[in-house]
């Protein structure tokens, strides 16, 4: 006897459990009860498992545990045995039996969850409070009505008040289909009071109608309680969704902002849409990738802090490419905006193909540092990922940086002067051509920072920039040219509007709707929300 108990303990069931098992009341387990387990009929198997649960004596528990860990076997003759290290053992007699033809008993998914529920249900009777708590938690996730007898029993015995409350909830989920309407009502009220969104699944069938138009649930009070519960859950869910949408909109907005900020500066300054602007994002992202690999290779200990190196490097990489581009090509095309458009598109093709040649056409992966992975759960159905939160903060820092550079430095003063009136600025001695170069490099560098941020939330490929150029231009159009505040509001506004429309119409139609809205918007305000005033407005 001691020997077999030890084996049972090894199977994951607390040895103490056996000791406190009810010794009376149920008919002893017979071979006939077990026979269906050896057959192929899953309904009969399910009934047999129900019976094992109701019995809950030592042999039944042993069989359930064996079922749960897959060591239950059956002979062709219909005899059910438990596989042990010593050989196949008969659960009824605890004797080792020779059974060369024994095959494992198969379960389907439904049965498997039922059995695992039952094993947890048996642990409800454990004297160890931690085991009981774990068992309740496990069962709350997925409670099968068949374990109701075990829950009833545990509920009658539980002394710990917090556990008792949770057991009540557990009982409620299993008692939703009780024959007594009062019990059902109590159960529905308990379930609804949990404010757990998963409970919707349990409540919805109660108010549903059958095919013939009658209600599933005959009692009106129960239906009303369930309806109230569903409505409460729905409002919780809606609240979560609204906050989630706002966050997604702000997150998209921060990405758009990073992509568009540099564009707004260069467009405002030289009146040229730089079609290669998206490629500066790509360069920033690849710079981050390279930094990540270098850090991983030479200083694996500092891996968590590689973004600190990546930020300046991506800024510098994009800025250098930007200044080269401006000096070599764009400088010669000032005053011919449409040709500049084509030229910058050509440059973007060259940059994309060059990246493909160097890094390969495949996407490359940048790993988040550990402090950026995961998220904070602020509501049941809402987790805010740390990487998106970081980018949101980062974008605001970049805006602040741009603001400081444009309003507090000499270069910024010149940039604003040239944006407003190039000729007049030149007349008073501003070296406009040099200002152009620096401002272009600065805009490109900001795009590089945007690329660094993008690398934390998505894959990096040579085509990365292509998907952002139109969106970032729309942001600039919306916000007005050369206006920081306009770009900020344009970016966040665009992000929020897109994400608000998306749940109703899908991403593609949302994009189209946003575009139509922008075309209509520029009917009213062709210069964007924050137009430059005075003569410079008409260039």
């Amino acid at each position, binding site marked *: 006897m001691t020997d077999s108990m030890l084996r049972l303990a090894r199977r994951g069931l607390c040895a103490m459990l056996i000791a406190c098992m009810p010794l009376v009341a149920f008919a002893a387990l017979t071979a006939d009860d077990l026979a269906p387990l050896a057959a192929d009929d899953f309904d009969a198997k399910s009934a047999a498992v129900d019976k094992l649960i109701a019995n809950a004596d030592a042999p039944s528990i042993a069989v359930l545990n064996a079922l749960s860990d897959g060591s239950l076997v059956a002979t062709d003759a219909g005899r059910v045995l438990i596989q042990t290290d010593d050989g196949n053992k008969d659960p009824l007699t605890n004797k080792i039996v020779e059974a060369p033809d024994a095959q494992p008993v198969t379960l389907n998914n439904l049965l498997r969850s039922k059995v695992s529920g039952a094993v947890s249900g048996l642990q409800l009777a454990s004297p160890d409070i931690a085991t009981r708590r774990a068992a309740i938690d496990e069962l709350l996730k997925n409670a099968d009505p068949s374990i109701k007898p075990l829950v009833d029993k545990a509920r009658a015995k539980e002394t710990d008040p917090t556990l008792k409350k949770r057991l009540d909830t557990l009982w409620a989920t299993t008692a939703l289909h009780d024959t007594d309407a009062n019990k059902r009502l109590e159960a529905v009220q308990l379930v609804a009071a949990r404010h757990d969104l998963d409970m919707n699944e349990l409540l919805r069938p109660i108010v549903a109608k059958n095919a013939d138009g009658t209600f599933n649930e005959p009692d009106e009070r129960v239906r009303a309680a369930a309806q109230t519960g569903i409505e409460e859950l729905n409002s919780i869910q809606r609240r979560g969704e609204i906050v989630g949408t706002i966050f997604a909109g702000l997150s998209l907005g921060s990405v758009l902002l990073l992509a568009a900020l540099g564009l707004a500066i260069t467009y405002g300054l030289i009146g*040229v849409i730089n079609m290669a602007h998206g490629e500066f994002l790509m360069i920033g992202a690849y710079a981050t990738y390279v930094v990540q690999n270098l850090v991983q290779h030479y200083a694996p200990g500092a891996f968590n802090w590689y973004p600190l190196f990546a930020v300046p490097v991506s800024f510098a990489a994009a800025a250098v490419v930007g200044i080269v581009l401006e000096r070599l090509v764009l400088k010669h*095309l000032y005053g011919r905006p*449409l040709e500049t458009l*084509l030229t910058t598109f050509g440059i973007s093709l*060259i940059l994309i*193909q060059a990246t493909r040649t160097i890094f390969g056409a495949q996407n490359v992966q940048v790993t988040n540092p550990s402090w950026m992975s995961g998220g904070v759960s602020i509501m049941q159905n809402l987790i805010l990922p740390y990487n998106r939160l970081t980018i949101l903060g980062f974008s605001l820092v970049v805006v602040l940086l741009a603001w400081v550079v444009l309003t507090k430095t000499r270069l910024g003063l010149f940039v604003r002067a040239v944006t407003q009136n190039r000729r007049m600025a030149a007349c008073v001695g501003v070296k406009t051509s040099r200002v152009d170069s620096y401002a272009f490099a600065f805009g490109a560098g900001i795009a590089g920072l945007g690329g660094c941020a993008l690398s934390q939330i998505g894959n990096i490929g040579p085509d990365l920039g292509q998907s952002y150029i*139109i969106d970032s231009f729309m942001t600039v159009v919306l916000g007005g040219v050369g206006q920081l505040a306009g770009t900020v509001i344009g970016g966040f506004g665009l992000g929020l509007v897109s994400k608000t429309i998306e749940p109703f119409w899908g991403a593609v139609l949302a994009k189209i709707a946003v575009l139509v809205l922008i*075309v209509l918007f520029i*009917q009213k305000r062709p210069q964007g929300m924050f137009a430059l005033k005075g003569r410079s407005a008409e260039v």
Partner: protein
Amino acid sequence: MTTPNVSANLDVAPQPDEQARRAGFALGLPPRAALLPRSGWIALIAFVIAMGICVPIAALVLPESSTFHLSAYSMTLVGKLMCYAIGALALDLVWGYCGILSLGHALFFALGGYAMGMYLMRSIGREGNYQSDLPDFMVFLDWHKLPWYWQGTEHLWYALLLVILVPGILAWVFGFFTFRSRVKGVYLSIITQAMTFAAMLLFYRNETGFGGNNGFTDFKRIAGFPITSASTRTVLFLMTLGVLILAFIAARAIVTSKLGRVVTGVRDGEARLMFLGYSPLAYKLFIWTVSAILCGIAGALYVPQVGIINPNEMSPGNSIEMAIWVAVGGRGTLIGPIIGAFAVNGAKSFFTANFPEYWLFFLGLIFTLVPLLLPNGIMGLIDIALRKKKAGGHSH
């Protein structure tokens, strides 16, 4: 050709003598250029007759072993290039003469193609994989009846009507709203590109009802003739050539007309033109819509020859490539864009066959260097060469 009587706005004083008014009006203008010089007409007619005789013989009569045999591959290739040339011509009308750089012409091209493709899909009949009256992709999506916008597309005449109406109406509506708010320059370019981009996303969706990212393909016949037969190909080829020539003459007629001069005025000094009492909106809309329709027709000719149309055709990159054909050939010349379309696409065929990985570098270089070094394109080069020759002739 209609000549809007816009000059009436100018006359604040009582209407002067009509004769004198005309003379006064014509005073500052150089003489109107001829549609084509006499030698041009002769060359054109000779070319048409020669092609009309040679192509059918080369494609249908000569055996395949002959060096002069026109294979299906080369005929499709040249036919495709001619369609591109029509598109480039259309873009030159708006960019070269009106200063509107459209980055959305691939959309009009594809819309014409899709309208034609709808007819071609319907004419497959029950010979598709699923033996259904519906096009295969609809059966695949488990649709049971045609969407409303597919009604009537089994008739060729209706499809041809759509080829003209769909790009035309879209261009008109889009143009009306953007031109009215005086959006221009790069602003306008990017908005046209965004329009194309949005349309491409829309066409990529299966629910839109145009075959999703596979688009239309596996056509069987056109107007009752098997679409892959040599004679059908020859007819399509000659039709494309005919349309290209007609489009060229029509475009030439537009730009040499009085209306065309106002359009050129919009390009060179819109504000000045407005002070003179013109409203640029109607002129811009006219040239823009004509251009879009022409592009749609090019697309409609393209699809039966190439045998496939999918949303890739309207990708923003394609639109920008069209602009570079015009730039390479020389914008504002009409003949230049045709040359440009052939040159760039010829180079593309050559590169993608021989050095596929360098094509984008080459294309990028064209984009970068042509505006820098060759602002007037190939036609500009020819012009310089001709002028030098003339100057040389004088010195002798």
